[in-house]
């Protein structure tokens, strides 16, 4: 068996785990809960094996030593590693807090990330390192960035859950904020799913996919009517999320996840993610850029967006400590932070050009 088969197993496992966790939430059967955890753990082990195997394949191909055999050199590999970090973080939380309910909120993110890989038809082949990436900083910079991204992703999930639990009034800003954010997330993912089914794309690179296929079946369809219908559909989805969002509150509450735990988890993940992101993402990135390009900071889109993300989380921490912000206000900042993180990670690679464009291959 090679690494891709193990990756395949883990992908299926996470999607099954997502179903199992949701079933666990719905039926509250502890056997289902144990099954969900087992499936997740199996997926995690399988992904770990796959990751090591891909590293070995990479080592054989590149012949550049262990430090440069880390399979984290393109969008596909980095997404897979992100999912790995996320599941690891989740398993730690499940074990520490003795609560399985978060699984239903975390595994969908993992499942969506893996689905995105397939939908976008991105290149899964192992490619040898181009000269700019042949540095020992690659390991430290990329792994730490992704650990931070994963921590931020968890804070996003708990942040949304917090807002879902604390907001009741459909006209309140916080309620509208979280339901609309969640609705847009869902709409974009569904639209990408339709693209995939409509075109059965196997475009070589995500750039090619974005340019030629993304939203072509929906929002950017040649037929104005379909495009218009797509916008109505998306608006409808957002409306439905808004209309029935309170159902989520009942669900979470029925599992005795308290507001305090959610707030605490959001904060803790940001408190772990922020220093790791600063050190690994910004500082190590700057040192590496200095050595490779002769410039530690060049305001290219990736760097600029990292800085914006950093500002948002710095604001979260300062608002919490200096102004004593708690509750909805601070949860909204956490959610905004992750939206910026996604843009730094995916949006820049897919939509903006710059020195980092090799990350899209």
């Amino acid at each position, binding site marked *: 068996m090679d690494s891709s088969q193990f990756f395949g197993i883990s992908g299926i496992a996470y999607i099954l785990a997502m179903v199992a966790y949701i079933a666990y939430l719905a039926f509250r059967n502890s056997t289902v809960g144990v099954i969900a955890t087992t499936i997740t753990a199996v997926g995690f082990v399988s992904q770990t094996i796959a990751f090591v195997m891909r590293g070995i394949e990479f080592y054989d191909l590149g012949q550049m030593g262990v430090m440069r055999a880390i399979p984290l050199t393109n969008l596909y590999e980095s997404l897979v590693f992100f999912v790995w970090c996320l599941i690891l973080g989740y398993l730690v939380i499940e074990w520490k807090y003795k609560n399985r309910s978060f699984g239903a909120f975390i595994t969908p993110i993992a499942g969506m990330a893996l689905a995105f890989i397939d939908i976008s038809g991105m290149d899964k082949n192992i*490619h*040898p390192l*181009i*000269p*700019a990436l*042949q*540095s020992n900083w690659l390991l430290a910079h990329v792994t730490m960035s992704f650990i931070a991204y994963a921590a931020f992703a968890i804070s996003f999930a708990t942040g949304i859950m917090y807002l879902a639990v604390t907001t009741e009034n459909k006209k309140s800003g916080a309620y509208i904020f979280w339901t609309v954010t969640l609705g847009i997330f869902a709409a974009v993912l569904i639209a990408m799913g339709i693209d995939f089914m409509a075109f059965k794309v196997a475009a070589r690179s995500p750039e090619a996919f974005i340019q030629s296929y993304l939203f072509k079946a929906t929002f950017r369809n040649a037929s104005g009517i379909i495009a218009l219908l797509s916008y109505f559909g998306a608006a409808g989805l957002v409306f439905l999320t808004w209309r029935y969002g309170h159902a989520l509150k009942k669900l979470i509450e029925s599992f005795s996840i308290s507001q305090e735990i959610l707030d605490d988890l959001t904060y803790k993940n940001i*408190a*772990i993610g*922020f*220093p790791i992101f*600063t*050190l690994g993402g910004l*500082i190590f990135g*700057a*040192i590496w850029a*200095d*050595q*490779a*390009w*002769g*410039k*530690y*900071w060049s*305001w290219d*889109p990736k760097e*600029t*967006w990292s*800085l*914006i993300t950093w*500002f*948002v989380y*710095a*604001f979260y921490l*300062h*608002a919490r400590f*200096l*102004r004593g912000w708690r509750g909805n206000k601070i949860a909204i900042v956490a959610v905004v932070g992750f939206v910026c993180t996604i843009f730094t990670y995916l949006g*820049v690679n897919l939509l*903006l*050009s*710059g020195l980092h464009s090799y990350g899209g291959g």
Partner: protein
Amino acid sequence: MSDKKENRNVVDKIWNVFSSITLAVVIFSLISITSIVGTIIEQQAEPERNIKLLSKFFGESFAPTVFKMLDSFGFTNMYGSWWFMTLLFVFAANLVICSLDRLPKIWKVVKEPVKPLSPELLNSMPLKKEIFLKGRVDNARSAAEAALKGIGFKADIHAEAGGVQICAEKGRYSRLGVYVTHFSIILILIGAVVGIFFGFNASLNLLEGTSSAIVYDRRTGKEIPLGFDLKCNDFEVSFYDNSDTPKSFRSRLAIFENGKPVKINGKEVTEIDVNSPLKYKGITFYQSSYGFSPSKDSLFKVSVTSGAKKEDISLRFGESFTIPGTNINGKIADFSPAIAVDESGKLFTYAETMNNPAVFIEFTEGGKQKYSRWILKRYPQTWTVPDATVEFKDLWGAQYTGLQVRRDPGVWIVYLGCLVMAVGLYAAFFMSHARIWITLKEEKGGVKAFIAASVNKNKIAFEQKIEKLAGGLNG
């Protein structure tokens, strides 16, 4: 008198503005929003590219006007514009003044070691525990000392009426972590300013075999003298097997001062590649790109083997060589930097760089055509011809190396700032200031122990420690 008072008020007001978190939020937002615009508008690009981009949003007819507006506000080179610099400066000032404003209070806490407190104050601590111990105060005291040691605290004992009060603390200086982090940001900004004012950022394209004593500023194109000569002896790209993915590209550089070669690390020629630059006299040369620019002086380097005889030959386009030990001549008749075969079997050049260089050699004997061959540098199976093996080694003097040249005396301040930031972040996020007070009082039949404690971060882990401490007192 009143004038002075008014002045004071103005200073106070300015101080208050700069020390407010509201200003920080405004500055964060302004820097973020303008930066977003800067990532969409391509920086320092040809106007046409941005006008094309803008026409998608504003339509063909409005795009040039919008572009002119953005251009006049500096959005096409915004990270170097005066107003963006001003924003960064206000950010720095805000950070300094915010920190100075809050530092005295924290400094007081940091300067003063933990000391015994009154029962009322101890009662107001967030963590409290009361236990009754058998035996005497002295025994309880040594048990407390040992238990504190067990959780990593050093006991400080003070005698009190009817007993003792033991104080202990850890991580007092971690309270400064936030300020250390803020200071590091200032250091990094200072380093950047030093780099801008006392350094340069230039580039240089150097053809194989040529040298230069000047480089060109990346922004203005102005000539900058190096103070020495830099020569490119050779440039080489290697590819991953059978592909056009470059594995590495490297230049062999040499430095001359007053015409004499200079040794760097004991070598006259230094090889650089993308992640390993050459440094000399505070100037760093980075390998950043390469290109192809052949001339009639470029030399074809071939190695011809016939039987046991081997000869290395350099010759120009159109010139001929003789296969050693024969009277067969080979003439360089054609060249392609990147040769490929199309579906119909025709040869064509697919790139303007030396991805797959090939040379066409016509062999003659006594003026009569014998045969001719394409010889490919990357494919040894093409080197064999009926009378010899002709290895095409290089076309020398045809490739130029693209160097990025930088002098940045501020980079060490930036690195120092990064180091300080790592320390500051560690203290701020992963360390906490924990204080414990234990009062031991004689009561009939034993000792009453009262534990009070507080921590500024990570409460759950600390509570577990206090549990352990209480257990230690009992045991």
